[in-house]
């Protein structure tokens, strides 16, 4: 089958062939996930970091087991946030380095769809993995199993919000050489409320009181981030691509 471009011009793509936003998002997510799984060592790093930090604190503070439970929510959440931050740099960097980010920007699908697809895929391999690993870490920190459901719900909301905030930070710093430190500087101040509410929700779950308040606030922050962050991140990408 010979390929000539005149064929393409005459035939073009019929409207029925056109790819909608959902189809494009699915294609981008498939690509992100397959690329991530081809480099499993990169996937494991945030998880290992998570485990290491959560053992560092009890070791360093040489706490009695009873005191450990008091510190547990804060340590867990701090570790989760820092581990998620580690991998945020990679969200756009690899595509920017080899030039495929420009190709994505010129694909006609709109940067917002691209940002959403990449961020959700990124969360699936980092944040979601952290949430799944959290019971293990929680046991090491003496958090009772009864608190797990609430703890994991709060972590889902928190890590997702952090991925959105991280997308903004990554998009702003994608062209920079030492962007890693700067992303943390940008994202952490905005993420401090997550730490506060998340740790509070976990603490209440441990003590048995209602965690509804902090959870609702976490959910509100998550909704806010999900609706606004894609636009901010795509505006930031436009600036970086300029």
């Amino acid at each position, binding site marked *: 089958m010979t390929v000539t471009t*005149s064929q393409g*011009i005459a035939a073009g793509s019929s409207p029925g062939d056109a*790819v909608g936003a959902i189809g*494009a998002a699915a*294609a981008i997510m498939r690509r992100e996930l397959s690329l991530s799984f081809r480099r499993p060592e990169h996937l494991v790093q945030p998880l290992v970091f998570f485990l290491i930090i959560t053992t560092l604190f009890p070791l360093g503070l040489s706490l009695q087991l009873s005191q450990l439970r008091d510190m547990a929510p804060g340590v867990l959440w701090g570790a989760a946030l820092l581990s998620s931050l580690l991998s945020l740099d990679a969200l756009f960097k690899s595509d920017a380095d080899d030039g*495929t980010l420009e190709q*994505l920007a*010129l694909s006609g699908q709109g940067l917002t769809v691209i940002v959403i697809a990449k961020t959700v895929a990124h969360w699936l391999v980092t944040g979601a993995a952290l949430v799944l690993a959290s019971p293990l870490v929680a046991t090491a920190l003496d958090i009772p199993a009864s608190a797990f459901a609430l703890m994991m719900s709060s972590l889902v909301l928190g890590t997702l919000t952090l991925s959105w905030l991280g997308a903004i930070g990554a998009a702003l710093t994608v062209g920079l050489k030492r962007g890693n430190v700067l992303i943390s500087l940008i994202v952490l101040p905005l993420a401090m409320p997550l730490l506060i509410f998340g740790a509070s929700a976990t603490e209440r779950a441990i003590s048995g009181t209602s965690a509804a308040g902090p959870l609702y606030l976490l959910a509100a922050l998550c909704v806010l981030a999900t609706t606004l962050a894609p636009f901010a991140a795509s505006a930031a990408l436009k600036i970086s691509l*300029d």
Partner: protein
Amino acid sequence: MDGLSVDKIHVWRGERHLLRGVSFALAPGQLLEVRGPNGAGKSTLLRAACGLTRPEQGEVRWGGKPIAAVRQEFLAQLAYAAHEPALKGDMTALENLHFAVSLRRRADAAELEACLERTGVGSCAELATRLLSAGQRRRVALARVLALRAPLWLLDEPFANLDAVGSAMLAAILREHVTGGGAALVVAHHDLAVGIEAGRLELAP
């Protein structure tokens, strides 16, 4: 295909006033070469023409309308090849093409393989692109341009890393594209020898 027209654009890179009042028009069936010394702004001109860089002054128009107003249509008819081949190293050549095309329409594997054959890298279809040589990567990038079936091509130094056979192949592809009603804006450092009349735009530093 509508025409691309660039109307007196000014682009600054940091402090440098890189493009000063550059204008040109590109209609279907035309080939335009962009020439100039290093640092003259050839790549920047291409990026401004496809909308990646917004000019501080002046306008880029597609079919008479500013590209910001007709962005979707414009991008659907555009294929841009940057100086870097822009391929994911961990994906095979075929996967790279498949992804690029799947963002615009349903991709047909047979057609994509044919494009790779046309540019001489059919045998590399199932190889991860990080394993390919620079010349082979360039050919895969060109295969992608073919596969997108776009009437307007913006190519930044497409002949880089190509051997004599490859250059002849690219010249033939360009000739076919332009005589078939497409348009191409090509940055090059030497005479294209495409065999058809080509306009020339010289950029001074």
